């Protein structure tokens, strides 16, 4: 098989685009590495060397002693599993030779992140946190308080994210709002133990995906990206806690510890 210099450039660009999409939408480093390598090899490269760091990828394609290297910054665009699924599907179709290089390029360029209706998400997140309040032993009034507190926080979180606010500011404000709404329940004594609502209503702000990705990156040998994700998740947790403490200091309702 022969591959001209221009074709090798093109191959490298296609592979790095796939890797960039995966990285930006929250895939773990192993998946980014493997999928990019598979796409590059399927397009005809002899080998693909890839370096994944927390906010960029560097890729080198090798063909008969000729190296092409390129770098892409990967700005975080929010977790979107739809995009990860689509890139994986393109990779599998390419390996089965159902697509050629041009079609892969066109399909990657055409991908648009799929998003659920935001009010549906608010409703489901409200019920989710309300279910957590059930796990903590809350009764029906607590369930209702938690629903409204977390749904309100989710609306705020979506609004701030939509306006590209810093995630730490966003999470702290959302935690502040959730705790404030839940503390109304404590002041008016809704239900048996209304403090449960304060604990359950902020659980929509737990950075679960970054934490799981962090540990699985570290387990699979990508220590530095794992540490970066871990630190990011920890900072988010700290800013949520600051929001909670700020709200409790203002309302005087001490729902945590004590």
């Amino acid at each position, binding site marked *: 098989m022969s591959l001209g210099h221009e074709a090798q450039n093109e191959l490298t660009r296609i592979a790095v685009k796939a890797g960039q999409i995966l990285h930006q939408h*929250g*895939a*773990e480093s*192993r*998946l980014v590495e*493997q*999928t990019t390598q*598979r796409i590059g090899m399927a397009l005809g490269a002899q080998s693909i060397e890839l370096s994944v760091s927390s906010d960029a990828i560097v890729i080198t394609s090798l063909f008969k002693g000729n190296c092409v290297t390129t770098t892409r910054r990967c700005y975080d665009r929010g*977790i*979107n*599993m*739809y*995009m*990860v*699924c689509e890139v*994986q*599907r393109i990779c*599998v179709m390419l390996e089965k030779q159902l697509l050629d290089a041009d079609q892969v390029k066109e399909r990657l360029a055409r991908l648009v*992140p*799929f*998003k*659920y209706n935001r009010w*549906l*998400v608010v409703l*489901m*997140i409200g*019920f*989710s*946190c*309300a*279910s*957590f309040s*059930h*796990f*903590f032993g809350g009764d029906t009034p607590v369930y209702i308080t938690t629903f409204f507190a977390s749904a309100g926080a989710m609306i705020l979180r979506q609004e701030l994210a939509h306006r590209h606010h810093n995630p730490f500011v966003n999470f702290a404000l959302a935690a502040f709002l959730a705790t404030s709404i839940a503390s109304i329940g404590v002041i008016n004594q809704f239900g048996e133990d209304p403090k449960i609502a304060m*604990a*359950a209503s*902020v*659980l929509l702000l*737990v950075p*679960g*995906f970054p*934490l*799981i*990705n*962090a*540990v*699985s990156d570290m*387990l*699979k040998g990508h220590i530095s990206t794992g540490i970066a994700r871990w630190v990011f998740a920890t900072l988010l*947790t*700290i800013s*949520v*806690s*600051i929001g*909670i*403490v700020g709200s409790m200091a203002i309302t005087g309702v001490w729902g*945590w*510890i004590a």
Partner: protein
Amino acid sequence: MELIKLLVIDAWFAWIPAVGFAMVFNVPKKMLIYCAIGGASAHSFRYLLMHFGIPIEWATLAASSSMGFLGLYWSRKRLIPRPVFTVASVIPMIPGSFAFTTVIGIVELNSGGYNMALAQVVVENGLRTLFILGALSFGLALPSILIYRGRPIV
């Protein structure tokens, strides 16, 4: 009989957060049903194990590794990367409350001065967070660590 009823209630309340968070992660519509089944079965399995007195860390490890293998089967069947189902399914088991208690305790240690009771809260909750989280991710990663060892799953 009583136990089965408790398990069903637990599963019912576990599928809601699994699907809710799957929607935050924009999991494709057709996959939401897998997240619901995974979330309900993993959380009720952990409930069952804890009912028989197994510590929460080991119960979490067992539940998440069973979820990892279930995700492996689905992922091979539907040609979809594994985190799409597995992460949303274990979200109900994430130790969020322990994590927040730890950090709030640290904030309090700073503002109110050091005291033994508060330090105990911080250390106990912090360690519990770390171990549950480690068990959770390790369990999910188990199939690719033990069986696939570097080869792609899909």
